[in-house]
């Protein structure tokens, strides 16, 4: 079976053609870098996304946050619920972990707030 994908690893947006047999990716075409191949394989087995959002700070302001690595795509909404339920204690700096171990990733701050 062949599956067509648009690579989201970088802004080039390569159009990938993945050949799948017995749930195994056996060939990736159209990619222009190694990362594209990795993406294609993941996308066909366990698609992952980085989630970016904002979290509420204890003074009522917002700080931007992200998962520090991609999480399984089907967990995006659950991840959002976790982000929406936290209150971030100030001060906070870029890279500070806000919630640990969220679907194999950490929620980290991407802004400084004091």
């Amino acid at each position, binding site marked *: 079976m062949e599956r067509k994908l648009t690579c989201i690893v970088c802004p080039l947006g390569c159009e990938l053609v993945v050949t799948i047999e017995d749930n195994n990716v056996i060939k990736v075409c159209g990619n222009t870098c190694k990362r594209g191949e990795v993406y294609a394989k993941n996308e066909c087995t366990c698609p992952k996304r980085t989630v970016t959002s*904002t*979290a*509420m700070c204890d003074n009522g302001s917002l700080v931007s946050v992200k998962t520090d690595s991609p999480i399984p795509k089907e967990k995006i909404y659950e991840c959002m619920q976790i982000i929406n339920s936290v209150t971030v204690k100030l001060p906070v700096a870029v890279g500070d972990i806000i919630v640990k171990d969220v679907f194999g990733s950490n929620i980290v701050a991407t802004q400084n707030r004091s």
Partner: protein
Amino acid sequence: MYDIAIIGAGVIGGMTARELSKYNLNICILEKENDVAMGATKANSAIVHAGFDAKEGSLKAKLNVRGSLLMPAVCEELGVKYKNNGSLVIGFNDQDRETINELLKRGKRNGVEGLRIVEKQELKHMEPNLSDNVLCALYAPTGAIVCPYELTIAAIGNAMDNGVNLKRNFDVKSIETTAIGYKIKSKNDSVEVRFVINCAGIYSDEIAKLVGDDSFEVHARRGEYILLDKECGDVVSHTIFRTPTKMGKGILVSPTVDQNLLLGPTSVDIDDKDDKSTTQDGMGQIIENAQENLSFVSLSKTITSFCGLRAVGSTGDFIINSPKKQFINAAGIESPGLSASPAIAEYIIKLLSEQGLTLTKKQNYNPIRESVHKFFEASIDQKNKIIKDNPAYGRIVCRCEGITEGEIIDAIRRNPSACDLDGVKRRTRAQMGRCQGGFCGPYIAEILSRELGVPFENVTKFGGKSKVNIAKTKGGKIL
């Protein structure tokens, strides 16, 4: 108890309120919207007509000529921009020339000064960007431009400074006769008054019917406009009218007092008095007409398009009368209503006094309203003094028009207070530039929330249900 209630805070209600505030009277203005100047006053051609257009002997003609004479002094007192730029009625063929000759004669009979016909060569010299097909024009040196909502806001602000009470969101539902005069009710408020002045614009026939006067009808006539960037403000310096035909006065091209270029209006009678939508056809017609009038117009510089509804009375003239004791109509005030407004106010006061209202002058009446442009037009030294006293004047909020936080706060604090985003826009021009509030809208919403003490999510564009945001994120409930 009020001596007088004015229904409608448009230019007629506003100018009348100001004129009446000179006297020892207890006055209220009842406005159904969240702000003043929300009807036809908000969206019209912004012209002070010279007065050659209206049929001689009509109220329109008399009050137009008188009103445009009074207008410069009124604007001066209220600190409102007024520009005597002159107007031209341009003709393209012999038939147009005939009509122009007629207008000249009529204008002279109406008492308009300085009217004359200019031929192509002189015309192209006066307005180099006019179409090459133009033949001649009627030149009216007394024609002028003014910003109608700026004038109205200033007039009502000045009236309020002199004691007039403004009640917003007061949508008149019934008017009952009482021993002393009338009781006017809205859904959840009421006022008792001796005299009523009906300045309700396109709804003035409905207000009149509430006291049993069904002698006239008012219907809505849609007028669509396109406003171009300030870069285009010098395409013409005069207000350019087409020669009127049976189909109406046609599309005009005019600079505004704020240096934009205004194209419009279309003219379509409609049934729905609430329908202020623009149409594809209307926009197309404006563009086509403007392209006929001008040798070149850059429509890519459009910053907004909008629609106003003119209140067209069934009699063909302004309907200013007293159908009932202590009740005055000022209805069917279509063009040249803005031009005539100072004279209409005088005329209404004459009717009131004929109705037995005693007019004694206030000792402490102050005709002056400090200009909202005071900071904008100040020298750098003066500005720095103001900024030192009030640092908010050092912070530019609207980058397109260069409007400071200080000016926005002033618009919220002074009479009549700006209570929503559009209110700030009409008072300060913030959000009126080329980005149309894209950058400054959120900041102005913040200032409104802070100054008015309302939650941020309750800030509206123009009152009612026109909320800008519907909920807080992060666990906030969607309303």
